[in-house]
């Protein structure tokens, strides 16, 4: 380095400086990107042995060994970890089917209100605010989905699917139709649909798509029978295509006595344009962490409220919230109470699901209202179509709505994804749905600007031009380079203790 006056500035390279040197490019410390807490400092504490333990030794453990760091050290550790994460606040995150949209900050503040943190066993009289918010959110969701009754209890989308399947089973059982043991799921459906149906004890009947990427009506006809409990469908489907024959599909399912289940993962495309209830769906879940912008938190918590038509309402999980019917109305304010639906399936969560997520959902819907929600779906669809028009990869199925599936063609989609990281953007979902070879399933959502979409398209197109050697070597601008997944699976080391045993 040369200073203004021409002198050369030399770095100190003595031993001490070397020990504390940070590799600024990758922040490597002790040969690692960031040591584990327990590698920085840990202490073993003995318990018992006649100390101040309030319990006899035979009721306690002998000792415990945990990280022991000061608060400033912890602050730096977690700040450092956060710097090694890409989130939607870091840049565009067009993960198809996952609906990664911007999350307003004020919803965090309302969820942190002291009144939001109440114990679940409080009396209904003492938590009228909590119950009123539940009631209003049930009402909002019912209107948005075109459903007659809503439960807020499921703590995630897959948990909502499970409620739908259990409600369907209880409904059939109640009607003397307990023999129905099959659930039909399109091949392109989310993996959770298959797993949920199996968890509910059903045989899964896989339904192929037609050449246009939609439900094959002939195949559906062949799959339907008196054993059909339900068809699980999302609309638009995972290719972003609207199932235009939805009314006919609903009639076919209903004609054999089955129920039609709506997977809410793609609801962001439909807000204010169409409602599952109007299409003939009997039961649906809402992925509120997708459609209504509550942060994904690195994998959760989400929430998966379930809406049903009137006939299914008596089977919903208990308890639900309703306006009080016992005449305790205080005059100026409506009062609310918990109640168990008549033929309830019981609980699917210890309490009322992920309540703080529901507070954020309520705030988001209340903020946007009709105009905001409808605008969100319009711009989500506009953005997907614009991005697709800008990229050089082939998009075989259209017209799509909020997401599209491009094909990486001769390139490996997983390598394309790694290389996109080098361009500073998060890649789309890869290799799924399998209908499209080397799939790049892309969903920009409504929150990206034209200039960001142009930047995303430029990243797609730059990678499309690159040779295999380049993309196979990617990424090289992320914190960590390409990670060896095979060795992670062959030699599972799932804890610090396993690492210590290994070394």
């Amino acid at each position: 380095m040369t200073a203004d006056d021409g002198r050369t500035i030399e770095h100190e390279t003595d031993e001490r400086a070397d020990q504390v040197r940070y590799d600024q490019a990758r922040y490597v410390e002790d040969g690692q990107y960031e040591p584990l807490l327990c590698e920085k400092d840990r202490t073993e504490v003995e318990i018992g042995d006649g100390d101040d333990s309030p319990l006899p030794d035979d009721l306690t453990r002998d000792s415990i060994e945990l990280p022991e760091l000061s608060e400033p050290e912890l602050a730096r550790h977690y700040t450092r970890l956060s710097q090694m994460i890409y989130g939607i606040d870091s840049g565009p995150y067009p993960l198809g089917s996952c609906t990664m949209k911007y999350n307003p900050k004020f919803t965090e503040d309302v969820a942190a209100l002291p009144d939001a943190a109440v114990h679940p066993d409080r009396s209904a009289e003492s938590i009228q605010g909590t119950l009123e918010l539940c009631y209003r959110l049930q009402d909002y969701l019912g209107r948005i989905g075109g459903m007659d009754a809503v439960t807020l209890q499921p703590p995630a989308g897959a948990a909502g699917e499970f409620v739908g399947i259990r409600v369907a089973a209880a409904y059939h059982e109640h009607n003397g139709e307990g023999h129905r043991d099959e659930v039909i799921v399109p091949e392109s459906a989310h993996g959770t649909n298959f797993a949920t149906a199996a968890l509910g004890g059903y045989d899964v009947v896989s339904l192929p798509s037609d050449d246009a990427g939609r439900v094959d009506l002939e195949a559906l006809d062949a799959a339907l029978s008196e054993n059909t409990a339900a068809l699980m469908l999302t609309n638009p489907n995972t290719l972003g295509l609207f199932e235009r024959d939805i009314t006919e599909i609903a009639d076919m399912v209903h004609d054999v006595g089955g129920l039609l289940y709506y997977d809410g993962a793609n609801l962001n495309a439909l807000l204010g344009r169409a409602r599952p209830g109007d299409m003939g769906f009997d039961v649906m879940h809402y992925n509120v962490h997708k459609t209504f912008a509550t942060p994904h938190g690195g994998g959760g918590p989400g929430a998966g409220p379930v809406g049903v038509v009137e006939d299914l309402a008596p089977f919903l999980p208990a308890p639900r919230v309703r306006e009080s019917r016992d005449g305790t109305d205080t005059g100026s304010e409506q009062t609310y109470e918990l109640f168990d639906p008549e033929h309830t399936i019981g609980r699917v969560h210890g309490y009322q699901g992920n309540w703080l997520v529901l507070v954020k959902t309520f705030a988001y819907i209340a903020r946007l209202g009709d105009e905001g929600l409808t605008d969100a779906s319009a711009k989500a669809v506009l953005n997907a179509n614009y991005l697709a028009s800008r990229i050089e990869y082939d998009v075989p199925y259209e017209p799509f709505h909020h997401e599209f599936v491009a094909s990486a063609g001769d390139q490996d989609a997983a390598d394309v994804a790694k290389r996109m990281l080098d361009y500073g953007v998060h890649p789309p979902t890869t290799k799924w749905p399998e209908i499209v070879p080397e799939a790049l399933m892309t969903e920009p959502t409504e929150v990206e600007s034209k200039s960001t979409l142009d930047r995303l398209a430029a990243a797609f197109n730059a990678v499309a031009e690159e040779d295999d050697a380049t993309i196979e070597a990617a990424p090289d601008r992320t914190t960590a380079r390409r990670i060896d997944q095979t060795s992670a699976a062959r030699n599972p080391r799932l804890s610090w203790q396993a690492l210590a045993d290994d070394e």
Partner: protein
Amino acid sequence: MHGTDTTGSPYAPHTDEERAAMLEAIGVDAVDDLFDIPADVGFDEEFGIESRTERQTRRLVRSILGRNDDLTELLGRGHYGYYVPSLVDHLADRSEFLTSYTQYQPEASQGFLQALFEYQSLLVELTGLEIANCSMYDAATALGEAATLADRVRDTSGQRVLVPDLLLEGRRSTLANYVAGTDLAIEEYPTADGAVDLDALRAAVDDDVVMVYAENPTVRGTIEEELDAIGDLVDDNDALFVLGSDPIALSLLQRPADVGADVVVGDASVLGLPTSYGMGLGLFACREDYLRQVPGRLVGASEDATDRRAYTLTLQTREQHIRRERATSNICTNQAWVALRTAMHAAYLGPDGMVDLAKRGVTRAETLADRLDDFVGVTAPVHDRRHFREFVAHVDQPARAIADDLETRGFAVHVVGDHEIQVCVAGVPDDRIDAFVDAFTEVVR
């Protein structure tokens, strides 16, 4: 600017000029042309939901939630209002943690993967079991997952799952829904003194039993004193021993691995989350033998192309997005961010802090029980055993009336029987305990 008079989503950009340019690039005249929805299922009405400014929305939520009474909660039974240090809120709220998705691209997710690896390591230390997943929904659903695991791993002809008759309704009912798709049948075994009645359990266990569930501490706050014997009994019958607990209790009480537990479930959010109207964090740890059958996500250590240690989701062939109907569980979205908060809180406390907090759970419950026991017409604790955080007190007067009276004086307690209340000290400051005793004096005199 998106101000008061918003006409669309305030979080969706695009000026009119940009929209026009985008439509031209696509080759359509209007956004409506992009929607391929048949007229007969189109929705052209309104939801009737008013659009509000951010400020109006905050006021709305605050005014709704403001209807909640401000009570001191001496409530437990699975959810505890421990103080959460500010460090947890401020660092977990960093937007990279909050706004990232599942770590499908590990090269861009090392920080979260490492935090989850540290969470798994915490549970391994607390339970002594070799494997912990990186979060499920809550204690009830984790118990359900333990039962379906038992169904997969136990090569017995039996189908009986034994649970204590004191099991919380939310857990019992959730478990029943989880096993509805299996041949498993849930049966209750009797308890005595708020804990396992070993003789009754011995009489109930035979070769048809697939799984036995017990809790330490129990729902009544009783510390289980027969865990070794339960472990031996279950092992002798080749069933799965599933133990329910939580991270604070596990810092002090017998290590599950030492008493023969095969799986530990419970609610880990006793650390890191306020009571949150029952929102939780499902703890799930098990023996290494069940590695390929574990439900949920696992983070493993590996190396990157520069041979440095790096973390990644691993063994995903167990999971629903790959294995579909043959997956070990349908769980996808889980409680990752809550797990992060729990690990942060545990790290903040350190080993001394964790053990101290647990010890205080015993001593403070004991002290309050002694104080209540001094009242005429009150016997506390009911069970002649040792207690953790909470205990049951017998009251001569109707328990419901006492609880209602206490509530008007600003205190919430559980009613667990016609003449039994349950009181919990966790997270309640000493001065509020004193105020509670004062109020109790007024109520029972």
